Structure formats: structure tokens, C-alpha cells
């Protein structure tokens, strides 16, 4: 008996058909008769196959598509047990910008993270890294608000982590996410001590200043661009993230040209605006997903020529995973009041989603972090194999059920189908596969296509 692998997807494409085997990392361009043969094999419709069919079956065997094992990517990140070796701090909810869509609703309440709690978090990831015999710990700084406003906190943490890591023969990897409105002194420190920086910039001058004004209503564009120029000067590794709104969705091509050609950004992240935080009040800020998809495709043709990377969390052909992100696995994000959240988009205990995503807190009495194992287990169960609407989706092993927060906000943690990311993921995954099948190279620098 011959048995085809389960994870095989067929899509029509002009004169051909495309067979996509995500877990085997293979794409075939075939004819209609080949698709019929697959159907015949799948349904065991014939006991005997013709000579041509037998040849194709041999090819399928060589491709590991027949009578082959299929290992699901269960643990893309880390171990199954919750034992984080990286920590991300959200040091403050204060911000020097007043973005119209801020997910964390910054500047509403001023809260900061205690340095002693942060030290304990570093001690914990060092302990975990040693237990797992790893050689590195990772420390990130993120909003809430603008993390680098709490400058003393950031520099103290970095020195502490460097010192403690060295004592334990571990290396450090520091990352930050910033709005890019930084002083020269801060930029110099980042260049010297950080490994990677992600800068939020929504695009050209007009869009940036409308969507991301300073808290005092002044324009932020020039300050952010100055930071990027400085990082480019010294060859520091950074990427940008642009939130695409209904106001900017038709300017995506101009934005990508500006970032790619003028600012020489090598890693450009576009994300469609999701109505949460401050944007909840302005539902019309979310972009039309079909416009986002159409323009994203056009933008890809620009970045692929310059070997820079354009990506969106909904399209990740390079990733094979059963869980969308670290929120469902190892995320350890410490927020201002000492709580631990699994997701940056849920950073306040007042957010009703904290019931799901707040997975621990610092226990001041015992001087250590305590975690809610039940909640961690519940989040880790949110795997693509447990999401019914994903079962037949071509993007399932890349998107893995999309963002869990957006799923909950759309009504169901286990049903992402109502989110715009679901549509974007399906459409763009199919687009990537078709493009590769038709010989288009360079869509993502992370992917190498080998044509046989």
C-alpha cells in the first residue's frame, strides 16, 4: 500500500498546478494529470497504476512524499517546560510620542518598573540558561511607553546583566524597540552595548508626523531619521517597523521606497494596524486588508531587487511552527508593576485580556517570580493542530493560527478566521509559493530556492 503524506496542498496556477509540501520544504509545479494521480493515491482509487503513473510515484517516493514520516514542528522555540532564557522589560508606560493608535495606550498612567525586580528577572534567566546548558542570555527593552526614557534603568540593567553573565561564562544579546527619538548620548550607548535595534517609523514625513507625533504635538520625523542616519554611519544592525493604517495603506510603495532607497533599511517590517489600545476608539484606522495585500506584493518587487527584507508577521515562509509566537511558549515580559505578561500587547493588569496573558508576578514577600502554570499550559495548548479552522489552510505551519491576542479580540482564541491577519496570511503565503514556483527569487533573504 502506498500512502501520501498528509501535509500536501494543491493550488491552481495559470497553466499549471502547484503542489506545496510545507513540512518537506518542497514546491512542485505539475500538470492536471499529476493532481489526478495524487487524488488517486490519496483515495486508493486504483490498485494498478500505469507505467507513467508508476514513474511519478517513484519520483514522489524520492521526494519523501510517500510512506514517509511527517514530524510536526512542536517546539520551535525552546523547550516545552516554561523556562525562559530571555527577558524583555517594559520599563515604563511613559512616552515622548503620542501615536494615534498606540496599542498600550501609553501616557495614561505613569508606572515604572523597579530595578530590583528587573535584577531578579536577570538572575532567573541566567539560572535557566545554566540549567539548559546554554551559552547566552537575551535581554530586550520594549514599550509600554518608550523604554529608553527610563535611561538609568536601561544602563543599570545592561551593566548588571553583563557582569552577571560574565561571572557565569554566558554571553549577552541586547535588543531594543524604540520610537527612535533619541539623544546623541543614548544612540552612542546603544551602538556600543546593543546587538540589535528595532525602530518604529511609519514612513514618509507626512505619515510619520500624523500617526506618530511627539507628546507635545511637534513633529517626530526629523529626530527618527537622524537616529537612522547615525546607525547607518557606523553599520549598526537595525530594522524598522511601520504600522500601516487606513491612512497609509495607499502609500505603502512610497514608504518602502523611502525606507529602502533613502534610509537604506535592510529589514523592513510592515504590520497592518490592529484596533487595540488607543486605536480601539478609532475603528476606521485599520487598513483594508485587500489593499494591504495588493500593495505588499508591489513592495516586495522593490525590496527583492535590493536584497533587503520586507516582512509581516502574517507571512513567514521561512518559519515552520505549531505556535504563532513566544506568547504561547517562552515569553517572559516584565511590565512596570512587576507582573509578567506573555504578550507586549497586553501590558496592563487593567486590560481584560490580562486574565489570559498575565502569567506571573514578582512576589515581594519571597523575593522571587511566581508563575501561573495553569495559564502557561493553557496558552501553550493554542497550537495550530488545535485550531479547527486552520486544518486545511496552506499557511498553517507558517502562520500557526495567527496572533492569539487578535483572535481573542475577534471573539475566540481558537478562531482567528475573523482577523484580517488570517486573510493576509493565506493570500500572501499563496503568493510567495506561486512566485517561487514560477522562478521568482529573492522575495526573502531568509529563503534560498533550489530549482531542480
Amino acid at each position, binding site marked *: 500500500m502506498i500512502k501520501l503524506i498528509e501535509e500536501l496542498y494543491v493550488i491552481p496556477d495559470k497553466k*499549471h498546478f502547484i503542489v506545496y509540501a510545507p513540512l518537506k*520544504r*518542497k*514546491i*512542485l*509545479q*505539475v*500538470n492536471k*494529470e*499529476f493532481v*489526478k*494521480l495524487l487524488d488517486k493515491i490519496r483515495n486508493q482509487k486504483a490498485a494498478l497504476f500505469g507505467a*507513467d*503513473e508508476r514513474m*511519478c510515484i517513484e*519520483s514522489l517516493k524520492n*521526494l519523501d512524499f510517500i510512506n514517509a514520516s511527517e514530524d510536526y514542528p512542536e517546539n*520551535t*522555540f*525552546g523547550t516545552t517546560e516554561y523556562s525562559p532564557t*530571555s527577558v524583555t522589560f517594559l520599563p515604563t508606560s511613559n512616552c515622548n510620542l503620542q501615536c494615534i493608535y498606540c496599542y498600550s495606550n501609553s501616557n495614561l498612567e505613569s508606572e515604572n518598573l523597579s530595578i530590583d525586580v528587573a535584577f531578579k528577572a536577570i538572575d532567573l534567566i541566567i539560572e535557566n540558561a545554566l540549567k539548559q546548558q546554554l551559552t*547566552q542570555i*537575551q535581554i530586550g527593552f520594549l514599550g509600554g511607553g518608550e523604554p529608553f526614557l527610563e535611561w538609568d534603568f536601561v544602563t543599570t540593567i545592561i551593566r548588571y546583566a553583563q557582569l552577571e553573565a560574565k561571572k557565569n561564562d554566558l*554571553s549577552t*544579546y541586547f*535588543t531594543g*524597540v524604540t520610537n527612535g527619538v533619541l539623544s546623541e548620548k543614548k544612540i552612542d550607548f546603544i551602538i556600543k552595548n546593543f*546587538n*540589535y*535595534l*528595532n525602530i518604529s517609523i511609519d514612513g514618509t514625513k507626512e505619515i510619520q508626523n500624523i500617526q506618530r507625533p511627539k507628546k507635545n504635538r511637534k513633529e517626530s520625523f526629523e529626530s527618527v531619521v537622524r537616529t537612522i542616519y547615525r546607525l547607518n554611519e557606523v553599520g549598526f*544592525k537595525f*530594522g524598522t517597523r511601520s504600522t500601516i493604517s487606513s491612512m497609509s495603506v495607499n502609500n505603502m510603495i512610497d514608504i518602502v521606497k523611502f525606507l529602502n532607497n533613502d534610509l537604506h533599511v535592510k*529589514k523592513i*517590517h510592515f504590520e497592518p494596524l490592529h484596533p487595540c489600545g488607543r486605536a480601539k476608539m478609532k475603528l476606521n484606522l485599520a487598513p483594508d486588508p485587500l489593499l494591504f495585500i495588493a500593495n505588499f506584493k508591489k513592495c516586495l518587487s522593490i525590496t527583492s531587487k535590493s536584497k533587503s527584507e520586507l516582512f509581516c*508577521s502574517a507571512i*513567514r*515562509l*521561512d*518559519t*515552520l511552527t505549531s*505556535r504563532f*509566537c*513566544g*506568547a504561547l*511558549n*517562552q*515569553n517572559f515580559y516584565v511590565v512596570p508593576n512587576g507582573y509578567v505578561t506573555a*504578550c*507586549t500587547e497586553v501590558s496592563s493588569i487593567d486590560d481584560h485580556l490580562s486574565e489570559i496573558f498575565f502569567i506571573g508576578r514578582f512576589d515581594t514577600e519571597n523575593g522571587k517570580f511566581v508563575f501561573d502554570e495553569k495559564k502557561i499550559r493553557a496558552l501553550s495548548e493554542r497550537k495550530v493542530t488545535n485550531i479547527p479552522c486552520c486544518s486545511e489552510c496552506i499557511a498553517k505551519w507558517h502562520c500557526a493560527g495567527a496572533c492569539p491576542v487578535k483572535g481573542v479580540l475577534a471573539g475566540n482564541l481558537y478562531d482567528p478566521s475573523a482577523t484580517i491577519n488570517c486573510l493576509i496570511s493565506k493570500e500572501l503565503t499563496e503568493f510567495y509559493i506561486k512566485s*517561487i*514556483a514560477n522562478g521568482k527569487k529573492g522575495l526573502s533573504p*531568509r*529563503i*534560498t*530556492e*533550489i*530549482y*531542480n
Partner: protein
Amino acid sequence: MKKTKNENLFTQDLGNKMIKNKVQRPEISRIIEIKVETAEVRCSKGDCDGDYSPG
């Protein structure tokens, strides 16, 4: 030898059948293997590059 009209028709017919037969055979016209460096490999080399929510 000069071909008659009928012979021409016959040859054309046979040719069409042959083309048709060729199309009816199941065929793979292209195989593409995708090579990637996954996030976990990159991160293990200390090159996470701010990947989307690395666990």
C-alpha cells in the same frame, strides 16, 4: 512522395493525438527545494535580529 489531402489529415490527426497523449501523462515540470535558516538556528547563533516575538 507527394501527400494527398487525406494523408495530410491523417498525419495531422495522429499528431494531435500524440500531443493529447503527452498532455495526459502526469508530469512534474519543476521541483523547488526551499532552504531556510530558521529563527531558532539564527537565535542559537546569537543573531535574533528582533524576530517577531522570539520565544
